[in-house]
């Protein structure tokens, strides 16, 4: 995508609207009523994703936040399109250690569903996922399903500004349910800020600019909590992941007895 206005098209003209409306069709995911995980990569836990609906920031419980993390690289290091191509291909490699993003082998493409296994405080693991809502040469967006820590989406983009390639992660979200809202208030926001700052730092380091400063801007878009959404807790990936972990010994015993049972 090339930025800048097209001088041939006067403001207000809609002559090229059909082209505009269809030129990005391949960039958007197709409509899905419920998510389906087609492949589970080795080591990934497929939990809290299959059968879930997507949630926009409006479907969540907590305050709505827009968080923007930005790092600037010298433009001669990498062009925006090249940076995004690499980021889409190796997305999970830039995450802080201990967290896993299981993308399809082809990388990030619109409509793909990826599994996430996140490290949480206390040594627990949280299993959830995301769908790739949108992807083009200079940006891509992930959208969360029911039960994810937050309802919303994250847009990753790169653009040329003066002599810099500006790399940005922007999160638009509400905590999904009261428990996650409480967790965000009790250090979760700080943890998330650290997570994306580290990720952007890793991207910058990959392109030869280690130690680059990451700017963070946080705006509360809506201070109201949506109490009518408290029932979202039913889908909570935290609760369901914890139950899954607690049941691990039972599953292990069942697996053993199943293997030891003689065939009839």
């Amino acid at each position: 995508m090339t930025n800048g206005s097209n001088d041939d098209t006067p403001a207000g003209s809609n002559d090229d609207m059909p082209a505009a409306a269809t030129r990005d069709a391949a960039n958007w995911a197709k409509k899905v009523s419920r998510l389906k995980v087609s492949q589970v990569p080795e080591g990934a836990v497929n939990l809290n994703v299959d059968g879930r609906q997507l949630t926009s920031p409006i479907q969540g419980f907590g305050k709505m936040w827009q968080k923007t993390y930005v790092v600037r690289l010298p433009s001669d290091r990498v062009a925006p399109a090249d940076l995004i191509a690499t980021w889409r291909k190796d997305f999970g490699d830039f995450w802080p250690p201990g967290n896993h993003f299981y993308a399809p082998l082809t990388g990030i493409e619109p409509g793909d569903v990826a599994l996430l296994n996140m490290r949480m405080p206390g040594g627990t693991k949280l299993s959830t996922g995301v769908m790739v809502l949108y992807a083009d040469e200079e940006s891509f967006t992930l959208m969360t399903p029911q039960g994810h820590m937050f309802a919303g989406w994250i847009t990753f983009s790169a653009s040329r500004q003066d002599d810099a390639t500006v790399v940005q992660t922007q999160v638009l979200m509400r905590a999904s349910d009261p428990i996650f809202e409480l967790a965000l208030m009790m250090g979760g926001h700080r943890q998330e800020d650290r997570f994306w700052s580290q990720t952007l730092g890793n991207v910058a380091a990959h392109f030869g600019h280690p130690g680059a400063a990451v700017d963070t801007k946080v705006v509360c878009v809506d201070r109201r909590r949506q109490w009518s959404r408290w029932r979202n807790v039913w889908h909570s990936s935290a609760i369901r992941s914890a139950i899954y972990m607690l049941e691990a010994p039972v599953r292990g015993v069942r697996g053993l007895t199943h293997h030891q049972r003689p065939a009839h």
Partner: protein
Amino acid sequence: MTTREAVAHVRRRDGVAVIELVGDLNAAAESALDEAWTAATNTRPDAVVLSFENSGYINSTGIALVVGLLASARAHRIPIRAYGLTDHYRKIFEITRLADFMAIENDEDSAVQGIGGDKDG
């Protein structure tokens, strides 16, 4: 791919503020949209109607801007409706679940009158 700079015009009709979006809805449209929203809600309208008749390309950042407007509308309890979306972008509004919160009408008359009713999700 070329982009068209976003412009947003505000007019009033039957107590409803109509924000006419012209050009591409992407990150560059943020200030135009913010200014239009402020102008549209300075005097409290019965509803705000977003006209996409003359809008072009909408990317995911543009959708996020619309979410921001929805959040403001909900915070101030102002119904928000839309019209002029192509079939393609209607689908996008359904995928992103904006359609759960915003009545999408076929034309301006229907949107101003709120024929389809307002949604609160």
